[in-house]
């Protein structure tokens, strides 16, 4: 998404990204980024919390207006509650090692199939 934001920005359209992966946003050079420290999936606010969602979107509009240079970051004040998700997302547990390898093999086979389909 950063690549799209950068392309628009280069062409004269100011952009702001709402996101929860701040490391990716910064690495990839987001021009403006509103960071909400939530599990991936709800970058515009907790489900069914219209007030929070409005506030997060407003933060994006504020940042569009107020940022004076690239890599501008605004951090929203919200916390998810429990922090278990931080540890559990993409957690590598020893008992899952074989299943993960099998998933990887399946993905590689699928991609090879896609490449062949594109080539033919």
């Amino acid at each position: 998404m950063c690549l799209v934001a950068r392309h628009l920005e280069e062409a004269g359209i100011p952009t702001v990204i709402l996101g929860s992966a701040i490391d990716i946003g910064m690495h990839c050079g987001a021009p403006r980024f509103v960071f909400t420290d939530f599990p991936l999936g709800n970058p515009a606010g907790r489900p069914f919390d219209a007030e929070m969602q409005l506030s997060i979107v407003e933060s994006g509009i504020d940042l569009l207006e107020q940022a004076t240079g690239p890599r501008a970051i605004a951090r929203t004040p919200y916390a998810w509650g429990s922090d278990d998700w931080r540890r559990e997302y993409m957690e590598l547990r020893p008992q899952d090692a074989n299943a993960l390898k099998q998933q990887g093999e399946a993905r590689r086979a699928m991609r090879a199939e896609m490449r062949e389909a594109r080539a033919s």
Partner: protein
Amino acid sequence: MSAQPVAYMERTRRYYEAQGFEKPYQWAKPDEVPFTRPSGPLAESRLALISTASLHERHETDPRSVASGFIDQCPERLYANDLFWDRKATHLEDLNSYFPIDRLKTLVEQGRIGELTPRFHCVPTEYSQRRTIGIDAPEILTRCREDGADIALLVPL
């Protein structure tokens, strides 16, 4: 003490490694970041909303391309079964938690922004940066220009 943000790049790298991929995914790392200031008051600006979710259910093997829908006929949900997001911690049952269309409409009603472009856009998160840079990003730009967008809000899952 507040918790540290999750290091998603590192976690993704380790996850792919555990799946047996030899070449880690490389995120684009630009030296310079472009920056454009809004050319007029936001209360008079037209905003384009852009998502990484898709208009229809999509499988990982399906071909991907930029797709657009009309704000006035906005679907009740978008699809993201093929994307990485935290299925254990949360859900996508509220469109506005990842595609804040109604919140933007409220800001238009309040006069904070001028209006929304007639279309919103769904951009595929391609594994291929070359494809994103060469095809998808220019297509999004074309559609934003056709719609007279002054500013854009991008919401990746």
